[in-house]
């Protein structure tokens, strides 16, 4: 596989989590996970007003770390 193909796979898998935690947990399946609680929050509500934002940050730094590793290999 070329560097670009590996990059595309990495991108799509991280974007899957991006979609899952915001549009998924925060909106579409929010009702189905609401029986779970974090403190006073129902889980769906927490994802839509707090959790998704934390996940976004983790995703960006994960991508940055992993793709830089790919790039170093590619340069060798």
């Amino acid at each position, binding site marked *: 596989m070329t560097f*670009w193909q590996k990059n595309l796979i990495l991108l799509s898998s*991280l*974007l899957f989590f991006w979609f899952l935690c915001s549009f998924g947990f925060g*909106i579409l399946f929010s009702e189905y996970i609401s029986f779970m609680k974090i403190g006073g929050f129902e889980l769906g509500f927490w994802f839509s007003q707090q959790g998704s934002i*934390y996940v*976004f*940050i983790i995703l960006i730094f994960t991508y940055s770390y992993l793709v830089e590793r790919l790039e170093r290999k590619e340069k060798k």
Partner: protein
Amino acid sequence: MEAQTLTYIFVGLSFALYISIAIASRAKSTNDFYVAGKGVNPVANGMATAADWMSAASFLSMAGLIAFLGRDGSVYLMGWTGGYVLLALLLAPYLRKYGKYTVPDFIGERYYSNVARVVAVICLIFISFTYIAGQMRGVGIVFSRFLEVEIEMGVFIGMGIVFIYAVLGGMKGITYTQVAQYCVMIFAYLVPAIFLSIMLTGNPIPQLGFGDKLLNSDIYLINKLDKTIIDLGFSPYTEYSKSLIDIFCITAALMFGTAGLPHVIVRFFTVPNMQAARRSAGYALVFIAILYTTAPAVASFARLNFIDSVQNTFYEDAPDWFRNWENIGLISWMDKNQDGKMQYSSGSPFVESRPIFTDKRGSLGQRLLENEANTSSSNEVYLDRDIIVLANPEIANLPIWVIALVAAGGLAAALSTAAGLLLVISSSISHDLMKQTFMPQITEKKELLYARLAAGITILLAGLLGIFPPAFVAQVVAFAFGLAASTLFPVLFMGIFSKKTTKEAAIGGMLTGLVFTFSYIVFFKFISPELNNSDYWFLGISPEGIGVIGMILNFLIMLLVTKSSKNPPESVMDLVETIRRP
């Protein structure tokens, strides 16, 4: 010392700081002016991006908006942060690798066409102008409340300050000023939030206090809030009241719109390389998240607090802040049942949408209104949502220096965003229209002069919009994001991820997205506002979320047209190959 004197000192000191930074880092070349010499540290750029991104609306209005929208307010929280994932993963590093000065620059060269470049400039100017008018208005509001000068005077002072540091310093000047503005802004936002959180829940971290139990009680704050507002006839705080498809589309339009906003994208042109661009987007989101995760907490604290201090209280016992804001005209009380107490519940207190004050006072000292009472609701209190953040320190009885600090923070938020927008407008005029399209023979010195002239003229126009706000300013926010999502984002994305997309496809795609989104919004907001409800919307999608459909159309047109036009020249495919390489 009086609150006002202290506010003058705080605001004066912060302005002096911004101007001295700008003088120390003024631009000497077009490279400095457009992209800060491409030498900005990724963390500093992250902070500057956060200040650039968080406007008067984020700082002043968002918590108030969420306080009254409840769960529906999540669209702003997810929408305005999730876009950074798209930026960091899909656009910023590649556009940085390309290495020129503006967004239309990339579109013009990648799609080998000056027509594409000019269409991009038009989209950019439209997006940025709707945005900048709101900033100048924010400056005016802060000045009139805290410094008791006329809104017009406030806008003039704001214009003067931005003029000095944006025109002198260019991108380099505003980057370092924005770093300072971020610090002022975030400190000013967090201090009242922390105090409010301790006051209500005993937990000093607002993000946790939001999910914690109320002080000396076994009830969670969020459950108490839900119960209180349901009792008053509002819909529950923790459940969506809009349809899921609309919530989905608005969130998506804001996310893709964020990723396509030119003044955000160019921030990533100022760092040394593509790795730095990616990391910088991550830092930017960290700095943004500090405010964005605090906002919903502040929203819930403020809503609960407001109801507690107002509901069934005698007007004579109303707290001072209530009367302060009533004097400015952003709160009003109409004693419909003549009991001398304020009743607050769902529904509007009067038939009109805003209070119309007479210059008379009632027997209790309240300002009398000319409005016609709305008999179908027992609500007597009108509250402008925009004051929540500004009023918080007073509501929480915080010391006066906190009030002064919040005023300085609000100004920092408005000025930093205005400066960023100003710069993308002026550089797209001097660089894309003049240097690249109509007057290619001008020297670098001339180009720099034109860039400064364009910045000066843009400030004047923006100031005028702030002084004479068109009634539709609030209505057109949907425009900026919808248009960015339906025009610039798809073209930038395909420009990087597909080598074969042609200039015909890009021009056709941008125009389709622009015309579709523009007409849909104009139809429902201006031509037939009486039809603006889900019965008439396409698939139940409101004008705020329609940018997503515009974006899908744009992608479809690009795919179809690319199939039927001949391949881009070899040099363009090589360009795409180069920007993908690490």
